[in-house]
């Protein structure tokens, strides 16, 4: 308490006290949030500036440029919808876009189907915490190498003269090398699933880790078999993790171009790769329009995931 208030209390206890106390409290109430507000503003200023400069402004620029008139080596600052019209009329672009969405959906679904069990094993089968995290770190090990190396590593494995084909030939399972193993949509999907599996496993692992063992025992006590435990308990409780994992994988797959280029080998395409081609030919407005469409479709997918995933409800 401040000096003045304690003095007034001693002076005439009965009457002065309530007034001075309430005044004191009021002053404190006014001062405290203001001080913290400043501290928070300073703390948040840097990340906000970072996001603004490196995300919001570039995206805004891309969107603006997508409405500019293209020239041979750049653009004129004249408004036009031609870039979008051109893309919408292009069968190639539509096919590429749908192929990208299909690949992303397949990758998301398959990483979920595979990743859930990895997460389940890590979170609920491995008994002690130390071993749990040791295994989790090992599962993360591929991320210690560069993304490109992991993508390129598929070539000696899946190529015409790669390990897999050689093995299949030598074992007499096939009479000639299987072409679809590399430079195909199949190869791209397999590679993407491998590359992004961990983005699905991690959030599901953390979701499942929060489940108390007593919950599963109570379910068993009530007569739930493994299927009922899976559908009634584990999947609903893992839902936030599943949705977050799905968002990660879907968004990453939608923007994919390096894997598509290396492992698709020109036989397949993605919007990301298309954008890169536009940029190579200095067609910035088309690139920007394709990018804007890609962002729009990706965001739509994320919205659907959050909508039907009801993430907040499970948290």
């Amino acid at each position, binding site marked *: 308490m401040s000096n003045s208030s304690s003095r007034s209390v001693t002076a005439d206890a009965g009457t002065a006290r309530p007034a001075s106390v309430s005044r004191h409290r009021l002053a404190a109430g006014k001062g405290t949030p203001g001080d913290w507000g400043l501290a928070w503003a300073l703390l948040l200023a840097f990340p906000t500036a970072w996001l603004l400069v490196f995300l919001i402004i570039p995206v805004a620029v891309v969107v603006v440029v997508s409405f500019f008139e293209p020239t041979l080596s750049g653009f004129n600052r004249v408004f036009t919808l031609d870039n979008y019209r051109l893309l919408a009329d292009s069968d190639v672009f539509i096919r590429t876009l749908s192929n990208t969405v299909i690949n992303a959906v397949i990758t998301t679904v398959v990483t979920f189907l595979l990743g859930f069990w990895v997460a389940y094993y890590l979170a609920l089968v491995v008994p002690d915490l130390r071993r749990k995290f040791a295994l989790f770190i090992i599962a993360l090990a591929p991320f210690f190498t560069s993304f490109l190396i992991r993508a390129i590593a598929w070539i000696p494995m899946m190529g015409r003269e790669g390990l897999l084909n050689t093995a299949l030939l030598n074992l007499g399972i096939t009479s000639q090398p299987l072409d679809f193993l590399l430079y195909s949509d199949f190869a791209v999907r397999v590679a993407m699933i491998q590359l992004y599996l961990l983005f699905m496993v991690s959030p599901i692992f953390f979701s499942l880790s929060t489940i108390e063992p007593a919950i599963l025992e109570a379910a068993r*006590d009530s007569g739930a078999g493994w299927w009922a435990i899976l559908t009634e308990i584990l999947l609903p409780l893992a839902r936030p993790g599943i949705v977050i994992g799905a968002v990660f994988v879907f968004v990453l797959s939608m923007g994919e171009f390096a894997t598509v280029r290396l492992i698709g080998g020109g036989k397949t395409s993605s919007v990301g790769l298309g954008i890169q081609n536009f940029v190579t030919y200095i067609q910035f407005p088309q690139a920007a329009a394709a990018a804007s469409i890609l962002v729009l479709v990706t965001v739509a997918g994320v919205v659907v995931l959050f909508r039907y995933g009801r993430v907040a409800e499970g948290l």
Partner: protein
Amino acid sequence: MAAIATQDMDQTAAAGPAASDRPKGKGTVELRGVTKRFDGIAAVDHVDLTVPGGSYVVLLGPSGCGKTTLLRMLGGHATIDEGEFLLDGVRTNDVPPARRDISTVFQHYGLFPHKSVRDNVEFGLKMRGLPRDARRRRAEEALTFLDLTPMADRRPRQLSGGQQQRVALARALVTEPTVLLLDEPLGDLDRLLQLRMRVELRALQRRLRITFIHVTHNQEEALAIADQIVVMQDGRIQQVGSPQDVYRHPVNLFTSGFMGDNNVVPGRVSAIGDGEVWVEGDGLSLLARHDGAGVAVGQNLHASVRASSVSAKPAIANGNALPERPNEVVATLIFLEYLGDIVKLHCRLANGQTVVAKRAENVRAWEGLVEGEMVRLEWEPEDVQLLLA
């Protein structure tokens, strides 16, 4: 909850989920040499126990004594390595949890956080394949029975600790078990709620007339709630008896120490008389009312005297000499611990040993007793317990 506590305990719960027309004695649990080992170490070691149907039994012991493991074996959540578990005379060792007429209220309740209270309660019936209407109705009965109807659509985390416990009870009782297992059911509640809930648990058991087996490490809780207390330590049963029995007549050092505020003195039997045994302890002599069975002169044993059986009054200022009579000793009052309803007197004998006396809080209990002064401590032969086991 109030409904349970206030309703007549003998009233048959017509609306309740409990089948009160169940023949008496159902839910009898028999254990024969039941053993559980973890990495070769016995967590539960050849336990023999019979729990009569419809009784309230408390497994009491410190953490790690095997009580929870024993409970988990009864519930079917841990395998029985050795021995037999009979439920109403039928071997139940290998029956899966859901097929036993046994339900468990888990420690921290294990409620399904993503389901509403109603769906939590319904779960067991749904798993048993009851049609939707039937399970709705029975869940509703259980909810009414435990006063949960107003919060049936809420999620567990929106409830208070006491309400969560009732949901766990409703979920366990909805399948009409003959045995209810409770693992530290009051452990998550604050003290005042604990005091209330233990009365209500007791009333609930009386009303349902099924067997309750309740695990706790809290002596007071066990004494307040149990028909039979099973004291456990090191995977073995140390003593089985009514609360009065276990409290007044601990049979061994462990029980005597664990039941709290016993003065345990090592000593030697110096004489055996007609219904009396003299024990020369370290710094004091004790006379016990005892038939002499299992006792021989010269035998080393421990004697225990409850703190609440020891009376204290100011010693005569100058007469510091030790009194000649047994069951009396002069000591220094080193600390007077005021606990509200009781007063605890910590006294030190000439040889440094501590004796605790416990008196009800009233003026006479500690009139004239001053820390640092000499006090005369006395107790009756009936209150001296010989620990033979």
